[in-house]
């Protein structure tokens, strides 16, 4: 009966070295308030000066999503009091953002959908209020205050949590491809607000929306949206109406709740910041940035399919993460490895272990070089893929060197046909009953024979040759 309409506002911390309006460092994890300079603290008399790199990064993003880059974008002040907002206003772009429009494609179950962007604008992050350090007081750390952000605002074009998550993942992947953010969700470098409303099926009028603030994982986005949809549907089913409000998703309880402090209608009194001037962006600068753009996910996807003959499914997985796609290509570089086989290995073996150990590509214990060595040994049939999997696990778990493992343990695939012939003959001789059954049509028994030979060779026999020999010899 209800259709949900979802729009996302994504806050992406840009990985500049210094803050958006001050020369203080943006490094994460410094002791409290040691990276908040006079400007970040809003000391009397200080003034903001815009960081060039933040502007360039915003333009990069705009180019990547096909937006219009606006000349003369304006910084405004958003006025409200909060202890982690030192000046009593946040410098943000309001009427004229730097990036306008744009689009992002999402693919779900093979179906493509375009999500349009409204805008992306530059702004400064606030500091942090810590409420659980003291019994009756809150502690304020302003190290984060002034960290550059782009806020990416989508049109309300997503219909369910799955689409929203896919869109979010694509933006996440994109900002990492562009190298403009580390996208670290645990550290808050990438977080989102979701606007959710329900409307009658088929209706074009939007319902009243609720905004869920500061969701910082893909999983939470999914459950927060689903819960909010359920909550609103229940209200509407009762015949009541949804209240426009800001809600907070509580992952520990898996529910959204109203934020009391934000209930009072806020009047932010936006006005152009008189300390900052319109940002002029020349066509030359845009062209220069365009000519230095890295390969983006969509282009890489097409290239992977054409160049490596991979399936679309495999490609999407590999390309979703810039570093993973680079890991894949590093393995193939200067080698004769089969791209499909390499892709399969990454998708099945590598990603399985990565998931189990919660590691991202940059923290993989197995370098692309070592994996290349291992896979080459499979390709030239020095070791079997079964052996390779065992070796790989040891490489991953204990950071062992694949050369050492293979050599020290004398791991070698037996591909010598004479040697294998003898073993196969023996097996056939000792299992005449099974031979008869096989010859009378029980093809499945081939596996039994292969297993016996492998057992005899302690797993080192070349399965391809064994298969071949068995099939020949078992013929009547």
């Amino acid at each position, binding site marked *: 009966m209800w259709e949900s309409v979802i729009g996302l506002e994504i806050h992406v911390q840009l990985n*500049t*070295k*210094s803050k958006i309006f*001050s*020369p*203080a*460092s943006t490094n994460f994890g410094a*002791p*409290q*308030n*040691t*990276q*908040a*300079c*006079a400007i970040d*603290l809003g*000391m009397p008399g200080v003034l903001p*000066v*815009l*960081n*060039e*790199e*933040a*502007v360039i990064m915003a333009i990069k993003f705009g180019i990547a999503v096909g937006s219009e880059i606006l000349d003369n974008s304006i910084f405004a002040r958003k*006025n409200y*009091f909060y*202890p982690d907002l030192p000046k009593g206003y946040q410098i943000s772009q309001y009427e004229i953002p730097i990036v306008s429009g744009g689009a992002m494609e999402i693919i779900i179950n093979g179906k493509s959908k375009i999500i349009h962007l409204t805008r992306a604008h530059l702004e400064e992050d606030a500091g942090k*209020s*810590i*409420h659980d*350090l*003291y019994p*009756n*007081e*809150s*502690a*304020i*750390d*302003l190290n984060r205050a002034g960290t550059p952000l782009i806020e990416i605002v989508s049109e309300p074009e997503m219909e369910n949590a799955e689409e929203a998550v896919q869109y979010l993942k694509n933006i996440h992947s994109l900002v990492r491809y562009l190298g403009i953010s580390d996208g670290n969700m645990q550290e808050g470098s990438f977080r989102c607000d979701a606007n959710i409303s329900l409307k009658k099926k088929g209706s074009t009028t939007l319902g009243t929306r609720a905004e869920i603030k500061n969701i910082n994982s893909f999983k939470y986005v999914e459950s927060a949206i689903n819960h909010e949809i359920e909550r609103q549907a229940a209200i509407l089913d009762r015949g009541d109406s949804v209240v426009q409000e800001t809600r*907070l998703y509580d992952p520990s309880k898996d529910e959204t709740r109203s*934020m*009391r*402090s934000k209930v009072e209608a806020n*009047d932010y*009194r936006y006005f*152009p910041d*008189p300390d*900052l*001037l*319109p*940002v*002029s962006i020349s066509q030359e600068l845009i062209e220069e940035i365009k000519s230095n753009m890295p390969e983006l996910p969509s282009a890489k996807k097409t290239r992977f399919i054409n160049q490596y003959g991979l399936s679309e499914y495999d490609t999407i997985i590999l390309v979703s993460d810039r570093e993973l796609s680079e890991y894949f290509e590093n393995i193939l570089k200067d080698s004769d490895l089969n791209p499909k086989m390499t892709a399969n290995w990454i998708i099945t073996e590598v990603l399985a272990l990565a998931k189990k150990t919660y590691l991202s590509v940059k923290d993989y214990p197995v370098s692309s070089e070592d994996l290349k060595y291992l896979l080459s040994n499979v390709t030239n049939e020095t070791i079997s893929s079964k052996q390779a999997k065992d070796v790989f696990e040891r490489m991953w778990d204990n950071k062992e060197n694949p050369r050492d493992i293979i050599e020290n343990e004398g791991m070698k695939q037996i591909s010598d046909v004479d040697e294998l012939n003898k073993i196969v003959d023996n097996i056939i001789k000792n299992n005449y009953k099974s031979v008869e059954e096989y010859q009378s049509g029980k093809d499945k028994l081939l596996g039994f024979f292969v297993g016996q030979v492998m057992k005899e060779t302690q797993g080192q026999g070349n399965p391809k040759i064994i298969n071949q020999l068995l099939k020949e010899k078992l013929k009547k």
Partner: protein
Amino acid sequence: MNKETIIKISDLAKIDIKDDQIDDILTSLEKILNLVDEMNSVNTDNVTPMSHPLNLKQELRKDIVGASDERELFQKNNIHTDNGYYIVPKIID
């Protein structure tokens, strides 16, 4: 402008106004607004608003870290700090 407006804006501005002051403030703000309303004697329909006296463009800063840790110096102006944190009454969201 009325009393409710005064209460609303004083809350936005975080200025405490005692009940017995509201009338005085209302009167003086209304006088100022009367003065301000003289602006309406000029038609400005086709005028672009001016936020800056000079027609300048924003200068950009190179992305260089140029501030060191001066926490101790900055916090000398504040006795309500602990372990490098600024301390405020507990905030309940």
